[in-house]
């Protein structure tokens, strides 16, 4: 496929994503939604932390969790969103079969559709960090931010999110109504397992190994270290910057390979079962 054709198809899928995400409400309500939602989530986190630790919101540990929580918007919105696209297209719009039998290719389509969600996640993360900076005084020293490894971390994280989303989209093709609860479960499981709001060291040992197999654990740890100067996990603190980035890259590479082949197997299974045009919500 020519690059121009790929771009044309990707752009139209991104355009559709924007229409679907933004057109359900009037602009004022939509703006309110994209501002209010992340701030509400951040406020909940602050309330939870206050309840557990008193009013010590300035603690370094809280800053780490707050920042990871801000970046978790990408997993919530983009990764889970790719699964939602499949479910929504099949069950609500009933258009999945027309997209699937067109030459756009599901990867291009899902990648394009997720672009708007990526933008929304970026807005959400930025707003949460701004609230932290101005309201909760969760601040970092700009002079100490290590930009190069931070940018590499963000780039690798983007790849991990897109490919994990692809695998989830494949799973949603096979699943029927269970896809709804699965998608909600994935959001919560990642929140729990990847050290968003507490160090992974606190998890039972078997779950720690699950945690280390997930790229987001490394992502949040690397963001904390390169932005704030320190991570949350004592065990991962023993790694050098290069070791941390190397492990993150390796886990992401494995995720890419597993997701790529896993998606193909799941799509094959969905086609074998006749699920691609099957409406299961009734």
């Amino acid at each position: 496929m020519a690059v121009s054709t790929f771009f044309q198809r990707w752009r139209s899928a991104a355009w559709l994503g924007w229409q679907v995400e933004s057109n359900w409400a009037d602009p004022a309500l939509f703006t309110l939604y994209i501002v209010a939602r992340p701030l509400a989530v951040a406020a909940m986190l602050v309330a939870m932390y206050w309840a557990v630790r008193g009013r010590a919101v300035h603690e370094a540990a809280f800053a780490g969790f707050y920042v990871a929580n801000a970046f978790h918007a990408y997993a919530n919105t983009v990764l889970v969103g790719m699964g939602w696209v499949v479910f929504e297209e099949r069950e609500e719009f009933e258009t999945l079969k027309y997209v699937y039998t067109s030459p756009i290719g599901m990867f291009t389509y899902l990648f394009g559709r997720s672009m708007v969600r990526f933008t929304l996640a970026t807005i959400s993360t930025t707003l949460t960090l701004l609230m932290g900076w101005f309201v909760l005084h969760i601040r970092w020293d700009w002079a100490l931010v290590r930009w190069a490894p931070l940018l590499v971390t963000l780039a690798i994280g983007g790849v991990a999110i897109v490919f994990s989303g692809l695998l989830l989209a494949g799973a949603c093709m096979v699943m029927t109504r269970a896809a709804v609860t699965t998608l909600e479960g994935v959001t919560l499981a990642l929140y729990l397992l990847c050290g968003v709001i507490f160090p992974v060291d606190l998890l039972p040992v078997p779950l720690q190994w699950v945690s280390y197999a997930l790229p987001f654990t490394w992502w949040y740890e690397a963001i904390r270290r390169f932005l704030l100067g320190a991570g949350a996990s004592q065990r991962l603190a023993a790694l050098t910057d290069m070791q941390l980035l190397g492990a993150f890259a390796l886990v992401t590479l494995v995720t890419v390979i597993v997701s790529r082949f896993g998606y193909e197997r799941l799509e094959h299974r969905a086609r074998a079962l006749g699920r691609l045009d099957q409406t299961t919500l009734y």
Partner: protein
Amino acid sequence: MSRTPDASAPAVETRALRRVFKTSRGAPETVALAGVDLRIERGEVFGLLGPNGAGKTTCIKILNTLLFPSTGEARVAGFDVVKDAREVRERIGLVSGGENSGYGILTIRECLWMFSQFYGVSDRIAKPRIDELIRVVDLQAIQHTRINRLSTGQRQRMNFARGFVSDPEILFLDEPTLGMDVNAARLLREYVLRWVRERAGRTVLLTTHYMAEADQMCDRIAIIDRGQVLACDTPAALRRSVQGGQHVELEVLPREGVSPSLDELDGVALAWGAPHPERGTLTLKFRLPEGQTLGESLRQLEQRGLAVQGVSTRETSLEDAFIRIVGRGLDDAAEPVA
């Protein structure tokens, strides 16, 4: 990069195509296709005609790469639907009738444009084509209306236009006029025929419930039932296969205790009956063999106590051929009575 198609390859070819749906909890499996052999040449309008559950849509789904066959082979434009699905998708279009699909937040025009982009059609070509299609389906006045505000019929017309927006080599029309009003259905049938005639090598595979639609549109028809192709020929040849003798329709008033069966009528090989509960009568359709008079048959019926309310004779239709081949009419409930 798209591979060069074999220009000599038929538009569609299936060999021993079989699809079995396994069911859970020990229920018996369903054989949707039981070894279908088809060969559709380029430039043909080919019809798949059969009752509900005959296997028509399953066949279309396999050819459109939506479903794997259990066994057998299917090729579209020379490409295997299992191994070369991407190549197949570059060349096909699909329209399914009787459904409410569509992105409610898009307008008709936006939806057609978006699908043209999925197929890689340039804006320079897409825009005039969309103009023409919107005119064909008579949606000009509401082309900027969101899809969630359209009636079912309007959505169907939009979906019909969507199928043509990529100007596909092979177009699959799965009951495209189901639920449409008579006038819209007629206009769309005419457009399909014009589209095929004006573009060399374009092929249409049509599944339909409507005998007249198949008869009017198709160069050849395969009659399919219970997953098997029972006959495949031109509509004229299918009609000829049952020619000879008169085609008779009788409306009879059954009497209590008297079976409205025609099996004892001399020379009548097969008949088909449709009840009219509101009138309390039964329409019996049968072919009277050459040399036999209708008067004799009527006398036999009256001797059996059946009151004949109406009699009509007519030319051989595709429906006659269908009934002879399948053993019943397109109506699911209808079963042979002799």
